[in-house]
């Protein structure tokens, strides 16, 4: 099976932050399949451990870090643990996501700040903690998995879409700030992706699916190879970008 020689993460160490949709397991498994050892961090032991198990099932080393990661001290410590347990850190995949939809007139101050901090704040902390090591060693790849609501608005999603746009804009600025330090940072923006979408026939009953040019939902596996590309040295001229994998939704009027 000819996988081009470039597509390898052999010898690399990744840190992935876990979501609670089950995507991190698929993505951590893909990182391991490409050759990386993978640390998994998150606040849900169930999801973190399932992602770590997928890494060891690929014959790679893994370590888990459970926490809330609400301050620099915690994200710094998680990066330090990754380095002490697995030897180094080359890749950060930020796959955690806090979803939130509510009419703006009912959204409390607490909800706004929680959504902004859980998404944009956390992405900033993780990038800052990993970026310190990466800029020191002169290499590193950061991949932020975000929603395409970074670019398109949605009713009842003012806070959530702002939190996604913030990550996209942070990514652009960091790509410039760390560009000459060998660190690359990009976003993968997803459309309607589900872990286990229903049958195609069942999906067609939803009006929104019929609006999508590809007329189906996607799966996390369909962003996995792009994540590997953005995690490897062979993508070193790609930085500051948001790449949308969304069945064509962004192209649509």
């Amino acid at each position, binding site marked *: *099976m*000819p*996988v*081009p*020689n*470039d*597509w390898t993460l052999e010898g690399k160490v990744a840190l992935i932050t876990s979501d609670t949709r089950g995507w991190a397991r698929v993505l951590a*498994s*893909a990182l391991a*399949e*490409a050759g990386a050892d993978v640390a998994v961090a998150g606040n849900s032991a169930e999801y973190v451990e399932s992602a770590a198990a997928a890494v060891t099932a690929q014959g790679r080393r893994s370590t888990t870090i459970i926490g809330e990661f609400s301050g620099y001290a915690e994200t710094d410590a998680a990066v330090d643990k990754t380095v002490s347990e697995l030897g180094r850190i080359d890749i950060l995949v930020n796959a955690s996501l806090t979803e939130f939809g509510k009419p703006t007139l009912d959204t409390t101050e607490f909800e706004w700040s929680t959504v902004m901090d859980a998404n944009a704040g956390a992405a900033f902390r993780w990038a800052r903690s990993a970026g310190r090591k990466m800029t020191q060693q002169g290499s590193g790849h950061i991949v932020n998995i975000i929603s395409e609501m970074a670019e398109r608005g949605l009713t009842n999603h003012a806070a959530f879409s702002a939190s996604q746009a913030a990550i996209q804009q942070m*990514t*652009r*600025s960091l*790509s*410039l*700030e760390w*560009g*000459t330090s060998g660190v*690359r940072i990009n976003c993968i923006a997803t459309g309607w*992706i589900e872990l286990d979408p229903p049958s195609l026939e069942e999906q067609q009953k939803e009006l929104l699916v019929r609006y*999508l*040019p*590809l*007329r189906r939902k*996607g*799966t996390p*596996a*369909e*962003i*996995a*190879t*792009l994540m*590997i*590309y953005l995690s*490897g040295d*062979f*993508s*070193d*001229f*790609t*930085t*500051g*970008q948001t*790449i*949308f*994998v*969304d*069945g*064509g939704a*962004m*192209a*649509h*009027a």
Partner: protein
Amino acid sequence: MGVLDALNLDGMNVVITGGGTGLGLEMVRGMAEAGANIAIAGRRQGPIDEAADVVKGLGRKSMAVSTDVTDTSAVNALFETVLNEWGDVHVLFNNAGIVRETGRPPLWEITDESWRIGIETNLSSAFYCARAISKHMADRGSGKIVNVASGFGFRGGRDNYMYTAGKGGVVNITRAMAVSLGRYGITCNAIVPGFFPTEATNATSMSLPRGDLIPIGRTGFPREFGPVAVWLASAASDYMTGEMFIVDGGGLAGGMAPTGYGPITELA
């Protein structure tokens, strides 16, 4: 079966225009390494023959078809030839283009002819090729069209009208094709390259920006296009359509401002 298996291009037939030199040649090399058979179209026989030899050297089928992509009968003949020989075309790469006419005339000195040639080569050629092969792809229920756009498809280029307008057109025809052809199982995306020193860009009067104007501090290496081409040609990108895959060292993330510019301020 892992996710990386989706990158396998064994048995895939690719047609690429402008595939004899520069970025096109590196995309050809990458896709052939991944298993694809590749038909290479271009104006000059020498470079496309050499590119075909690269593909054959990797054990894949290849043919070099001398084609002027602005001539619709030549474009139609290209696809007839490939279909007669191989039966199927799975992937089309619209890579042909010209960076610039000679010289940098001001707007008021551009002739009808140079406007026409610039738009024909940079934009219409992609339409002609897609038109010629899309019915075949739709009948099969699958296909991938990959256009090559440019950062100048999003931002203005000084004294660079035909390229800027043509590539802007490529960006949006990519979206129109994605929205229209999705229901036939066809995806359409664009690669957006930044500054790469190639024979074509070196031949223009436009000097490449120095590395210190590109956020990562250097121009690109043509070989950095191989993996991108493989991903877009393969089943790994099946859920992506209508999108721009930007590979530009960070240029579009900020702008062509001197690298390192960043005033430091404190919260009041």
